[in-house]
């Protein structure tokens, strides 16, 4: 299993690069160009992250996040979800950068390899910024009556949060 994880990332890079060579792509040029595009992505996420991480750090320092976790604990513990992730559950469907800020805070507070840190990462990787996506897609289509799209999408989010915690317990037994 550890060999698999050791080779996951370098292996994927190698496979994709070889495939690119087969398809006669200038692989090195593509990597460099793509990486410079990554700087654009960073420039776009940095300003909201500065605003939101300040707010999350203040919430953490004030003890508000611990209070939230304590309130949510009875319900979330029954579902097998670490109650510390409750701020992530609340902001994830609304704002991608807020979720990034909360996720970074959880990983910094509890460690990226803790049960909480891993659950937060899997939650972020298996859900989307639901309300933002719905607003943009229906906006582009000129749709006002969204019918059952929001409840169905939120159902997917809830199942995603629940199974993220479940999957982390399954693959990383404490």
């Amino acid at each position, binding site marked *: 299993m550890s060999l698999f994880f050791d080779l*996951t990332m370098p292996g994927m890079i190698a496979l994709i690069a070889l495939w690119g060579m087969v398809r006669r792509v200038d692989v090195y040029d593509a990597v460099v160009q793509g990486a410079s595009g990554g700087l654009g992505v960073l420039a776009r996420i940095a300003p909201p992250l500065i605003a939101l991480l300040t707010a999350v750090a203040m919430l953490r320092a*004030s003890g508000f996040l611990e209070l939230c976790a304590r309130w949510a604990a009875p319900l979330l513990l029954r579902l097998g979800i670490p109650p510390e992730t409750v701020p992530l559950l609340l902001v994830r469907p609304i704002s991608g950068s807020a979720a990034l800020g909360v996720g970074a805070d959880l990983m910094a507070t509890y460690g990226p390899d803790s049960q909480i840190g891993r659950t937060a990462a899997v939650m972020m*990787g298996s859900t989307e910024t639901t309300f933002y996506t719905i607003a*943009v*897609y229906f906006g582009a289509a000129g749709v006002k009556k969204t019918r059952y799209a929001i409840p169905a999408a939120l159902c997917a989010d809830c*199942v*995603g949060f629940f199974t993220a915690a479940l999957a982390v317990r399954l693959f990383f037994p404490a």
Partner: protein
Amino acid sequence: MAMSALWVGMIVAAILCALITGRTDAVAAAAVSGAADAVELCLSMAGLLCLWMGVMEVMRRSGLSEKLARLLRPLLRRLFPAFAGEEDVMAAVSANLSANLLGLGNAATPLGLEASRLMARRTPGVASDGLCMFVVCNTASIQLIPTTVASLRSAAGCATPFDILPATWLASALSVLAGVTAAKVLALVWRK
């Protein structure tokens, strides 16, 4: 405006809570250090994120996305029976979903907007069952390699940021399944 409410709400909640818990000094320190932490986080994420953006550019140029789109076609015709006969819709839908699978966000969004615009032609102003299904597929993350999260983990000092992949795949698959099932069930009971 929603973001303004969220941000101001967070700040006000932090100050009110600090007044109750008596941790005003910690909140003051956090207000000063939070911004610097964010910049530091961006810098430590930068390497892995840019590297993956480069690898994904190779995927984009090599036509992997188009290949995947062709593989997805038969499945998608079943998921969107009302649009199975419309070539332009199915092309945009399969291109969008395959770009999403590969994590090519910049390519996926314009394709997705095009697909939802084309789907809404028949029922202007109202979301048809097909359009609801399509939007639900897009609100459930189906990205195979969650690069941003991996960069975040590595920035937090994790040596194996990709060890969450199997767990993420399982959670993603089940959440997409839940969304698709919910959309199919609600399509039967919701009034037009």
